């Protein structure tokens, strides 16, 4: 059987202090495998972003363990967590968080640069990825000259260029119109399949469910029992 890339066991997370204390995650058990795009849905405030932050090693769980590619994040220092993110995780944020002073190609190359990959190969690689997300003509464009959809595609490029095992995207289509949303989901889904990555996407948009291999629902910090998606998950499961 496929070893899960991300594994959460009995994860709980309490946020805030004193009267503002919120149990944002309650006893979450979850595994993400390569080759699948998982969609995480749930009402506002249900804990989606918190779950993504914990799985992405940006927040330490209050209880339970998170394992990335087999290694536990228990008690890891901030620097060690940064290294785990660097080695294994690609992020796509709702508000893109591109660097305004860097061009599209440089924004993508940045993900290689922080990993110490520089020079001509990094440049070529950034250009390939820009082509992969459909923006080969925007190499020298700055974020301010790109549309929201284009910016999010650059952000996806940044998330995938270093070939992480898992890609976590928090409402990557929320700031985009329907057409751009479809395009972005299409790219994420293709990356999961072609490169055997685990992709987890938070979305509110039910029109995007068609891209999902698996759908998770979270309510009030707790994952709901899964129902097989009508799409291809069922066939993959039954043929295995």
């Amino acid at each position, binding site marked *: 059987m496929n070893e899960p890339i991300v594994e959460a066991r009995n994860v709980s997370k309490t946020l805030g202090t004193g009267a503002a204390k919120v149990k944002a995650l309650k006893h979450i058990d979850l595994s993400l495998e390569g080759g699948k795009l998982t969609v995480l849905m749930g009402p506002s405030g249900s804990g989606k972003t918190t779950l993504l*932050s914990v799985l992405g090693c940006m927040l330490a769980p209050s209880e339970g363990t998170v394992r990335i590619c087999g290694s536990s994040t228990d008690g890891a220092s901030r*620097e060690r967590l940064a290294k785990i993110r*660097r080695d294994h995780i690609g992020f796509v944020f709702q508000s893109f968080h591109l660097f305004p*002073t*860097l061009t599209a190609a440089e924004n993508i190359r940045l993900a290689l640069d922080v990993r110490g990959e520089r020079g001509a190969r990094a440049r070529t690689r950034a250009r390939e990825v820009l082509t992969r997300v459909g923006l080969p003509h925007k190499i020298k464009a700055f974020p301010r000259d790109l549309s929201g959809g284009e910016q999010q595609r650059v952000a996806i490029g940044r998330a995938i260029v270093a070939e992480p095992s898992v890609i976590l995207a928090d409402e990557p289509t929320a700031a985009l119109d329907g057409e751009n949303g479809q395009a972005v989901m299409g790219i994420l889904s293709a990356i999961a399949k072609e490169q055997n990555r685990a992709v987890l996407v938070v979305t509110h948009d039910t029109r995007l469910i068609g891209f999902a291999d698996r759908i998770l629902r979270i309510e009030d910090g707790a994952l709901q029992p899964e129902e097989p998606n009508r799409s291809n998950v069922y066939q993959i499961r039954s043929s295995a």
Partner: protein
Amino acid sequence: MSLVFTLASRNLFQDRLRFVATLIGIVFSVVLVMVQMGLYFGFGRMVTTMIDHAPADLWIVAKGAKSFEDLSLLDMQTRDKVLTINGVAGVTPVVIGFADWRLPEGSMTPVFVVGSDLKDDGLKPWHLVAGSLQALTPPGAVAVDRTYFDRLGVSGVGSTAEIRGHQVKVAAVTDGIRSFTTTPYVFTNLDYAGAYIGLPANKVSHFLVRLKPGADLDHVRQEIQSAVSGVQVLTPDQFKQKSRNYWLFGTGAGMALFAGALLGVIVGTVIVAQTLYSSTKDHLYEFATLRAIGCSNRYIYTVIILQALLNAVIGFLLAAIIGFAVVEFTARSALPIVISNDLMFGLFGLTVVMCIASALVAITRVVRTDPVMVMSR
């Protein structure tokens, strides 16, 4: 090339106004430090100018004398005693002192008379631009600097004036022998100097001692010291050091200059720290994003420190240009600002340290940033 440099330079140049403010801060501070230290070294050089130009292996000065300008007196007979000491080739007296110079039209101005043997081994005027040393032999012949022509009411060789009722005549003119006390120097022959200053007979100010070739300087120095009481026997370097100590620290002038320089450093550091901090705060989401995508702290520190270094290098270059202009401008003034290569290197080091210290303040802000903030916006 790493994107660290790209990020740092674009962060810096993107906000022009802040960048200009930072540079003004650095330039102001570095120029202030440069001028203060330049004055310090200029003053330090100026107070030893007579010692620098005296042909002496050793100086004999009065016991309590702290500088060349000290007016304590020595007995002329000391000379004969010193001449008997093995290794001594010659002993030349020097007399110094203040005198009133009466201008041809009758008004008076103080001058500082330096009298010595002008034929061979004395403290002779230098940088002659008119007249000659030979012309200073007759009674009443003096050398003055052309900077002080107006003050002394003379116009060149041949002009006359009066000191203590003695008629004097300008027989040589120097260029650039300026006094930090602003009292003009008047060089004259030893034989008449005493009368101008009003010295008792057989009294002099200092002795210049020349040694025979191969004589042991330290040995001779001790011999003289034990043979003559009530004097100090100093090498030129020791005497210069003593003079500098007296004028720079005995009078507090040096401390004032250092305090000014310190102020410059503090002001510069505060300005750079302030602008770098606010720049870092403006780019906090970017630093948090860097952290979120897994970049190491070192990478982030490098970006901030590079920003600081770019500030330092550009600011220093501008300050250096202004510094050279100041040096040019003051070169012919009473107190030239002296900026040596060592001082330049030191200042560059100081600028870098100042900027990096400022960067540390910004770094503490970034260290406190939690990358998870990028998830919730």
